[in-house]
């Protein structure tokens, strides 16, 4: 259960970013979380809400885009979502595939409004 520290890192970075813009208020923080990042989106939302409660960011929402594990085939270039842990290429069957997304733990964008 490290979602609280992740939520705290999100808030710290977003707050720093927002403070650089005078007269604006943060309304939404949008993040991308990959399936392999080891983060439970529900626990992250819960932690975020608990951290912003009764603060200046109480009205700020956290939007989480959850990204599945995706691989690319080294032989035929096919890109595919890994379902049921099957990492072989569904098109040509080779096992030589590499992870192209699913490990994200990153910011997407912020939404702000004028105060």
């Amino acid at each position, binding site marked *: *259960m490290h979602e609280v520290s*992740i939520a705290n890192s999100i808030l710290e970075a977003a707050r720093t*970013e927002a403070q650089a813009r005078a007269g604006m208020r943060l309304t939404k923080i949008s993040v991308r979380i990959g399936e*392999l990042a080891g983060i439970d989106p529900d626990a992250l939302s819960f932690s975020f809400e608990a951290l912003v409660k009764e603060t200046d960011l109480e009205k700020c929402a956290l939007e989480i885009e959850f990204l599945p594990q995706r691989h690319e085939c080294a032989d035929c270039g096919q890109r595919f979502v890994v379902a049921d842990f099957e990492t072989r290429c569904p098109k040509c069957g080779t096992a030589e595939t590499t992870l192209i997304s699913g490990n994200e*733990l990153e910011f997407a964008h912020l*939404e702000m*409004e004028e105060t």
Partner: protein
Amino acid sequence: MNQIPMAGKILKENDRIAAQLRAAFQAHNILCLNLVSSPGAGKTSLLERTLESFPANERVALLTGDLQTDNDARRLARFGFPVRQITTGGTCHLDARMIERVLADWKFEDLDMLLIENVGNLVCPSSYDLGEAAKVVVLSVAEGEDKPLKYPSMFFKSELLILNKIDLLPHVPFDLAKAREYALRVHPDIEIIEVSCTTGAGLPQWLHWLKQRRELQFPSFVHAVRL
């Protein structure tokens, strides 16, 4: 409403420190491994048996993380190699800053290998890069063989799986073939070594893996290895 792009990783501060540590380890030819597992899988026992097998002049050091107590550091200190306990005080994982802080007064010139025993937890430590060359996941046969399917992130990110406590196989319903199959399903390239820290089975293979992993990391320093 204004949308402002915000790029960058959420743990960028951790990743920045981890990258610095990795560069420093690489520059000093230090093989750094991050040992992860659920609590009680046998990370400390594996390290004890590892240290026991090293010659006294082996340039190895250890960091061990726990929520509370320095019991593990005391167990490991018996072998005469430098050991430091990182007590997280409740945090469920080690992060790069903790490693940086604890290594601040250590001379990297004196080391060839740094073994980090993470907090026992199969989820959270998978998110935090410590600057290691590789993660090694330990799974004991006293657990369920479906652990790789339940915690795929950790098994996907680990280079080696140590299947530990195999001396208990006659007494537990653990399906070894299934465990291997599940680990390989999640991570087709994962290497697997079956070990018993009690009987010593598999330990030579583990020590051989360590030696090879160091040669892989530092091809020009092959003869400096004294395993």
